[in-house]
């Protein structure tokens, strides 16, 4: 059985933390900054960072169309924070030139939890992970204003969803890569491997 090759979109952001998390789960991980690198991976992580910066670099370096094509072909993704914004159907308060890839059936508001002094951590239960809560780190996080029927809300904080699953995609407002808890990366790898019929590690 072939082994799952996971890419981390490395235009900007906390790429290293995701590489370490995936490797910590025993899977292979590499960075993706070019069309060839995108072609060489089975699944993609869109990390935290600034969504405006990533949007611009995706366009300028001709990665947007290849990325859209891979997503249309069913490439599994894990997206965190800025990555979630890129993967969403609609970005409220975004910039007009901002990319919304339209894969996750969610409408997000950039910086919806406020400025940096309001960034926070909290223990939240995440349905597929069982009883033990997950320490979720929110940094100038996007707010999911609305999750449509295609998105399965797997965690909420207060009145809003903070984690959604949709087919082989997982989208998170927070940063599992900033903790030592690998359960969400593990869940992503299992679902990605199942959808592609390859081995996770």
């Amino acid at each position, binding site marked *: 059985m072939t082994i799952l090759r996971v890419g981390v979109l*490395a*235009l*900007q*952001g*906390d*790429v*290293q*933390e995701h590489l370490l998390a995936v490797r910590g789960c025993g899977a292979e991980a590499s960075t993706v*900054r070019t069309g060839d690198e995108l072609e060489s991976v089975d699944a993609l992580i869109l990390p*935290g*960072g*600034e969504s*405006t*910066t990533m949007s*611009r*670099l995706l366009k*300028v*370096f001709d990665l947007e169309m290849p990325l859209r094509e891979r997503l249309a072909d069913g490439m599994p993704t894990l997206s965190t*924070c*800025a990555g979630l914004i890129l993967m969403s159907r609609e970005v409220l*308060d*975004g*910039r007009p030139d901002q990319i919304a890839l339209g894969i996750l059936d969610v409408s997000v508001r*950039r*910086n919806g939890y406020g*400025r*940096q*002094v*309001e*960034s*926070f*951590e*909290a*223990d*939240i239960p995440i349905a597929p992970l069982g009883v033990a*809560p997950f320490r979720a*780190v*929110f*940094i*100038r996080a996007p707010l999911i204003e609305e999750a449509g029927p295609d998105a399965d809300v797997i965690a909420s904080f207060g009145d809003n969803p903070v984690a959604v699953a949709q087919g082989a995609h997982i989208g998170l407002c927070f*940063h599992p890569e*900033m903790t030592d808890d690998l359960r969400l990366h593990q869940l992503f790898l299992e679902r990605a491997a199942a959808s592609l019929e390859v081995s996770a590690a």
Partner: protein
Amino acid sequence: MTSDKTSSNGHEPHTGGVRVKRGLAEMLKGGVIMDVVTPEQAKIAEDAGAVAVMALERVPSDIRRDGGVARMSDVGLIKEIIAAVTIPVMAKARIGHFVEAQVLQSLGVDYIDESEVLTPADEEYHIDKWQFDVPFVCGARDLGEALRRIGEGAAMIRTKGEAGTGNVVEAVRHMRAVQGGIRRIASMRPEELMAEAKHLGAPFDLVQEIHRTGKLPVVNFSAGGIATPADAALMMQLGCEGNFVGSGIFKSTDPEAYAKAIVAATTYFDKPEVIAEVSAGLGKAMPGLDVASMPAGELLATRGW
């Protein structure tokens, strides 16, 4: 951890902790933070792909030219810049001026730079940064200075370079000093660490942490003299995690083009063909200064310790 202001467990949201402070810097990695002096410049920076802007009244080369006392920027200007962009906004406080820092925190800036570019308010003590919910970035010339600032609560380090010169030589010197210091500690035997902490004037627990992890506990950007896409890529290849660019953008002949090119060169720092492509037809970089011939009194990097 040296001393976090607060700690909590459970369902109550916990703000102002070490993880979210250092975490924002993690999100800026691989990016460029640009000095801006007007809301219009802030928008140009955001359009060009900056990950954050530094709101200032004057860029360092103008501060250098004008002389006098350089202070925290006008509050109205900082508010206008915060309103103009969606990316994080940083602002500078004078070294040791904790009231300027309190004011900046109350304005909602996302990061405070306790900066040698402004005239120091205290020549002996830096700000006790643990007392704040907003994170701080501080300058350093070598590993000891970086670890002293982290010990005081800095959540991000930038090597100082020599701001406002358009000359990358000091940025290179300081980045090499920090990276070399880390490699040295990583290769030591455990019994050598206390002597090294004494030699560096650095907190022992942070020296031990570097010995264990082989890296700084916070993100390290470069700053002070980066004027071209090749400069930005050089600093990345030397091991920094992103770049602050001050006068280099808005003192060039085509700021928009320089901003875009420096962003691209920071992402594709190890791809010379990309750096060549984005460097073509850029116009003139900012005029540079020879740091070696500058009188000691004009050096900004020697402010703070």
